[in-house]
C-alpha cells in the first residue's frame, strides 16, 4: 500500500540569506500510513503549522522530499488529495452553510445535483442537518468549525490536514468535537494530520503523537498511542490515558531543553 505521507530530510528556511532568516524546520523524517491519526505537538513556533503547510503544498520546502500518496506534494494538491481545516473556520460570510460546504465541489466543476446531495450528506455527517440555509454569523464557533470540517471532507479527500482546529473553542465544546471527529475519521477512512498545543487532545485522538522541539523544529519523539479503539468518554478516565499524558509531557520537556 502506498504511504499517505512521506517526509524525507525536509528542511524549511524562511527568507534564506536575509537579515530576518528563520530556520523553521530541520531534517524532518516521517512516514504516515493510510488511515492513521497523527498529531503534531510542540511549543509555539516549533514549525508544526509550517510542516502541515508543506504537506499541503501551500508553501514549498527549502530542502528534502515531501510526498503525498506517492506523489510530490504539488501534484497531490492539484489532484485534490487533501482537505484543510484551519483554527479559524474561514467560512465565506456571503455563502449559506450549504454553499460553504459545496464550495470545493463548485470549484472542481461538479454538477449542481451532485453538490446538493453531497453537501447535505456532509452536513448530516457533522450533525448540522437543518442548518443548510443559515449563514455563518448565525452559528456558534463550534458549529462553524463543523461546517469547515464538512467542507474539507466534501470532495472525499484521502487526507485531512487540521491546523489547531479546536484551538479557539471552549473546553466542553472541544471535547465534544474531538469525539465527533473520531466518529468521522472511523466512518470515512481518512488519514488525519492534526496540529495541536494540547497534550490531552493529542493523546485522546491519535494513533501516534509526533513531538517536536523548538526552532528549528525537529522531530524528537514519535509516541505510539495504544489506547483501545474506538475511543469513548471513558478513554479519558483510563489509567493508560494518564500514563501516556505523562510520556508525551516528559518528551516535550526533554525537547524544550
Amino acid at each position, binding site marked *: 500500500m502506498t504511504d499517505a505521507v512521506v517526509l524525507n530530510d525536509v528542511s524549511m528556511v524562511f527568507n534564506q540569506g536575509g537579515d530576518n532568516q528563520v530556520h523553521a524546520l530541520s531534517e524532518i523524517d516521517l512516514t504516515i500510513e493510510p488511515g492513521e491519526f497523527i498529531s503534531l505537538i510542540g511549543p509555539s513556533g516549533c514549525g508544526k503549522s509550517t510542516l502541515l503547510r508543506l504537506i499541503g503544498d501551500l508553501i514549498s520546502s527549502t530542502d528534502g522530499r515531501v510526498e503525498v500518496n506517492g506523489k510530490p506534494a504539488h501534484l497531490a494538491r492539484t489532484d*485534490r488529495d487533501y482537505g484543510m481545516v484551519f483554527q479559524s473556520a474561514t467560512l465565506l460570510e*456571503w455563502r449559506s452553510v450549504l454553499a460553504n460546504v459545496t464550495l470545493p465541489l463548485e470549484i*472542481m466543476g461538479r454538477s449542481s445535483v451532485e453538490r446538493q446531495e453531497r453537501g447535505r450528506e456532509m452536513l448530516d455527517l457533522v450533525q448540522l442537518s437543518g442548518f443548510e440555509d443559515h449563514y455563518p*454569523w448565525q452559528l456558534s464557533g463550534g458549529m462553524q468549525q463543523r461546517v469547515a470540517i464538512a467542507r474539507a471532507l466534501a470532495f472525499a479527500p484521502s487526507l485531512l490536514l487540521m491546523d489547531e482546529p479546536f484551538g479557539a473553542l471552549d473546553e466542553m465544546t472541544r471535547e465534544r468535537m474531538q469525539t465527533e471527529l473520531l466518529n468521522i475519521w472511523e466512518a470515512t477512512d481518512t488519514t488525519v494530520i492534526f496540529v495541536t498545543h494540547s497534550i490531552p487532545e493529542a493523546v485522546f485522538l491519535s494513533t501516534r503523537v509526533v513531538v517536536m522541539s523548538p526552532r528549528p523544529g525537529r522531530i524528537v519523539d514519535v509516541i505510539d498511542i495504544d489506547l483501545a479503539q474506538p475511543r469513548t468518554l471513558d478513554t479519558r478516565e483510563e489509567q493508560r490515558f494518564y500514563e501516556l499524558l505523562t510520556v508525551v509531557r516528559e518528551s516535550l520537556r526533554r525537547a524544550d531543553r
Partner: protein
Amino acid sequence: MHKICGMNPTPSRQIRRLWSIVAILTLLAVGWEAYKWIGETTGGVWPGTTTRLPIRTNSRSMPHLWDIAVSLFRPARRGGEDILLVILLRAGWFTLRSALVGFVAGCSIGFGLGLLFVRSRLAERGLMPYVVASQTVPVIAIAPILVVWGGRLDLPKWVSVAAISAYLAFFPVAINTLRGLRSPAATATELMRSYAASPNQTLLKLQIPAALPFLFPALKVAATASVIGAIVGELPAGLADGLGRAILGFASSFSSAPEKLFASVVVSALVGLVFVGVVALVERLVLPPTRRIDPTEAAASP
C-alpha cells in the same frame, strides 16, 4: 453573536430614523433664522458684546429660508414662463446625465485598475503614484485641457464633461477595489489554493464577493464626485444648459437676487443626494445588513 437586531430594520426603526432627519433639518432651519434674528436685533454683534458676528445677517448674505423656498416657485426671469425650480431641475437633469456617463466610465476604470493592481505588483508599483498624483491636480486645471482635447477630436461637449466627471470618480473606486480584493484572510486564500482553484476562480468566488462591502462606500463617493466634476466641467466646456452655468449666472446676480443662488445650491445638493441614494438602494439590495460597512465604524477602524 453579531447584531441580530440589525438584520431587519423594523418599521419603528425606520420611522425613528426619518424623525431624526426631520429633527436635524428643523434644528438647522431654526438655527439659521435665530442667527438672523440675533443679528438684526443687535445690529450685527454677539448679544451683550461688541464682537461682530462672522457672517452678516442681512437678506443679501442670508436670505430668509421662506424667501429661498418662494423663489423656487417664481419665474426665474421677469416675464419668463418657467419657475426657478423647473429651470434648476432641467439643468440638474442635464448635468446628471453627463455625471452618470462619467460615473459609469470612471467606476469601470477604477474597478479595472483595482483588478490590474491586485494581479500585478509591478503594475501597482508603476502606476499607483500617477493614480494618486492625478487627484492632487485641481480639477479646474484638468477640465479646460480635457475640453480642448475633446474639441480637437470633434466630440460633443458633454463627452468632455463626462470625462472630467470620470476623472474624479475613478480614484476612490480604484483604491477601495484594491483594498477589498486584498481583504480575504490569508487562510481563505490558502483554502482556495488547497482546492487548486484557478486565479479566475479565486477572483470570482472569493475576492470579488469579499470586495463588495468596500466597493459601495467608494461608489457613493464617486457618485458625488461625478456630479461635482460635471458641474465644474460645464464651465470651460461652455455648456449653458447645466447646473454649472446656472450657478455661475445666479452668482453674478447675487446682489439683486441672492435667494436664487441659495436655491440653486439646494437643488445641486439634491441632485447629488439622489444619486448617492440610488447607490445606497442598490447596496441594500445586494448586501445583507451584516456585510454593510457602517461609515462611522469604518472611520473608527484603522
